[in-house]
């Protein structure tokens, strides 16, 4: 199946889910939550992300556009253990000014698959509120193309759909939820390994999310849909990449995103929109800076 066909199919699935929307629900948009996936419950989350990076100090006037459609499936093995599978469909395109004029390079298709397990280790439940702590581990597998070529040769590693490497993540998420609001804090470390003589830098993330119910102001009976105003923060530190054992001084650094968003949550579904705006980008060398990342996301449980 061609990559473009996969993108179209994923988009059609997303539109279909939107059209068949019956009810919508809460949790962070840009990262994971400690809230339960009930035993034998399945949750499907599909997102469309657009990342634009045009702030280039290198003089090459690089414009990077990345569309990502990650499909996430979660399954509750027990009330404490949930397994997640994440498969992204990617479309990466970079425009560069060279001696011969403006060049476009890129690739689209399936990216690297990530498997994740989360275990709710501790919780306190009370009427209308809960607090939970859940450690998680994740394994990113090299399922995406990592040696794609165009007329100019093999694409640079950051433009490949997959890294070719196995990456390991370890983290912990804490969630405090009441009927009126929710606060989440997630801390994770990702260990990256080498493939094709290239190694992306390890990553540390500190993510926080605050969700405030803005509608309905007064709860009615039954299970009404909730609208939450959302404010998230993503603090990301990435180590330098290494190519053939040599440190790439134009990679890695610190990025801090603020992400305002909105969620509509019901019993079966969640529709959410968030825009991650970088407030701090202390990147190494002439790393391409990020303009924004916008995410539209839909969740449904079965």
């Amino acid at each position: 199946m061609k990559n473009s066909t996969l993108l179209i199919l994923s988009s059609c699935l997303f539109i279909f889910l939107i059209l068949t929307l019956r009810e919508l629900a809460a949790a962070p948009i840009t990262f994971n939550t400690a809230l339960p996936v009930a035993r034998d419950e399945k949750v499907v989350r599909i997102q469309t992300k657009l990342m634009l990076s045009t702030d280039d100090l290198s003089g090459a006037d690089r414009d990077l556009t990345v569309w990502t459609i990650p499909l996430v499936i979660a399954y509750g093995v027990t009330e404490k253990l949930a397994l997640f599978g994440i498969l992204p469909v990617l479309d990466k395109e970079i425009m560069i000014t060279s001696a011969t004029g403006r060049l476009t390079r890129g690739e689209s298709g399936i990216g690297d698959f990530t498997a994740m397990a989360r275990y709710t280790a501790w919780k306190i439940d009370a009427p209308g509120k809960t607090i939970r702590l859940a450690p998680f581990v994740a394994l990113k597998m090299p399922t995406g193309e990592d040696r794609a070529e165009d007329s100019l040769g093999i694409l640079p590693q950051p433009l490949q759909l997959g890294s070719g490497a196995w990456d390991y993540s370890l983290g912990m998420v804490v969630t405090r939820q009441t009927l009126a609001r929710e606060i989440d804090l997630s801390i994770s470390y990702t260990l990256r390994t080498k493939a094709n003589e290239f190694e992306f830098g390890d990553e540390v993330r500190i993510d926080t999310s605050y969700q405030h119910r803005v509608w309905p102001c007064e709860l009615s009976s039954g299970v009404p849909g909730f609208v939450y105003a959302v404010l998230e923060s993503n603090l990301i530190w990435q180590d330098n990449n290494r190519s053939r054992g040599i440190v790439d001084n134009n990679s890695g650094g610190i990025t801090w995103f603020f992400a305002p968003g909105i969620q509509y949550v019901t019993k079966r579904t969640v529709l959410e929109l968030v825009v991650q705006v970088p407030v701090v980008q202390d990147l190494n060398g002439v790393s391409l800076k990020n303009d924004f990342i916008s995410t539209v996301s839909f969740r449904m449980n079965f």
Partner: protein
Amino acid sequence: MKILYVLLTVILLLFSSPAQARISSLSVAVDGMACPFCAFGVEKRLKTVTGVSSVTVDMKTGMALVNAKPAHSIDYQKISEAVKDAGFTAGDMVVTVDGRIAKDTLDTLVLHFNGSSLVLQTDSNELNVHLNGAAESSRSVVLKGQIFLNSNKEWILRPEVVKEVKP
């Protein structure tokens, strides 16, 4: 004509038999449930409990109302486990139960229904008189009250209301 009379008698006996003795509805507090998306898992798990026909969750009160299938009794002993499977903690449970009261060897009042039984406990003298009266007359009663497992692993019903006393 005689056959018809016998058939009618059998049908009437069937309808007045202990098949009607059952837990017809139950409400359970679901502690920790604080968002609509979580309510789905609670409904889904409670619907797997034997005898359950429908489940209605109320976010404001944090309660789940469980109704039995016609002529079936809700397996109340599995309710807490179902709430736990959904990732939450079961709180107080209140049942509406139809059964017959009898006294056991220790003179304790016990409500029998659908092959199961609940030990009755009440602090109200007035209610106690009603319950003893129902036990002596062997009449069927409909009680509403809180149920819980005591330290001896016995299921206790603390009736709040005698909703009906049947002949």
